[in-house]
């Protein structure tokens, strides 16, 4: 078995993940934020590994 097989499994795994997720929670491009966060006037709201969870009600 060569690396072609394992690399293809990785890419296929990603494709399956995205496809399953898109079918369960389809994205909505009409709710998309502005192209750049810088200059958008909105605070970042993405998940990040360094962030503690924000308590409810904040």
């Amino acid at each position, binding site marked *: *078995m*060569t*690396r*072609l*097989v*394992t*690399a293809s*499994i*990785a*890419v296929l795994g*990603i494709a399956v*993940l*995205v496809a*399953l*997720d*898109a079918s*369960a*929670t*389809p*994205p*909505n*491009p009409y*709710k*998309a*934020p*502005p*192209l*750049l*966060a*810088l*200059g*958008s*006037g*909105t*605070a*970042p*709201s*993405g*998940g*990040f*590994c*360094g*962030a*503690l*969870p*924000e*308590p*409810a009600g*904040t």
Partner: protein
Amino acid sequence: MTTLTAPRDTAAAPLLRRGGLVLAAIAIVFAAALLAGGRFGLMLAIGLGFGIVLEGLRFGFAGPWRAMILRRDPAGLWAQLLAIGIVTLVALPMISAGTGELTGAQAPVGFAMIAGAFIFGAAMQVVLGCGSGTLVNAGSGNAVALVALPFFAIGSFAGAYHLIWWTDLGALPIISFSGWRGVAVTLLGLAAIAALLWKLAPPEHRRLPRRLVVAAVLVAAFAILNLIVSGQPWGVVYGLGLWAAKAASAAGADLSGSAFWSAPGSLERLKSSILTDYTSLTNIGIVLGAFLVASWRVGGLSQKIPALPLQAWLAAIVAGFLLGYSSRLAFGCNVGAFFSGISTGSLHGWVWFAAAFVGSIYGIRLRSLVKLEPKP
């Protein structure tokens, strides 16, 4: 006739393959932009850029630390410090001058954070892949990374699940350096480490190859773009944990027992597409970018998978899980804590570096013990 056309056909084959790879990459980015929105397409493109640079120019984290520990070769580590320094120069002033549109990778130093970084350092040497490295290695066909990756995601999910319990064991308030003063402190710190490495290195290793300079500049450029586009620094492990959390949720698991996964922001992201999660998009891009480069190279994917004993595969599974779990306690991996933490002024990035480096010294010894490589 055949002898005249055969060489032309052979020469055309890589061109066709490479053209196809470029077109596929562009199509995937456009598809993400159309399905989810322009910002998310851009984030996928940035992730592809990371993957292409990391694999194409062989810029990594675990390997260079190993080279420093075993051979006192600091080149790769210097390149990391250079990239962090460039990002610091741009990111810290932008974050400080902004109106809250951009945020840094700031987190508290604590007992669990230090222990997490130590374990991460050890585990990343066992599989020879850090947060970004495991993604790159999986995309370029490394079987150990491919086995470790799903367990990395499960570990990240579990670590986040228990994060508050661990953090409650004791942590300082968040300490960070900001503005131009923060830039000066950070650059001085980076320069001091670079000088220490110079002193430790033998004369024949006191050089930084041009390839690594180019890679450091490009990685820094993509990290700055990551910040400008998403409003947050480059990270890896949150996205992996989110994938596992979504899978657990879809399988009917109740996540309400976790303060982390039941927080409003987490609930919102669990209900949203991963095509709208920044770290997921850059992670996907890194795997695809590494695949693109490996496929681009002549013979890049024709290497045989090494035959390893069962013990080595089990070690890859355990180390993969520990990579994910420990990086959540440590508030990030080599990317989210070390690279982005230091470059955005967080003290925890420096502490992470020290603890993970000590962990790496032990991890290198473990790698041969679990038969992932022959004993020296």
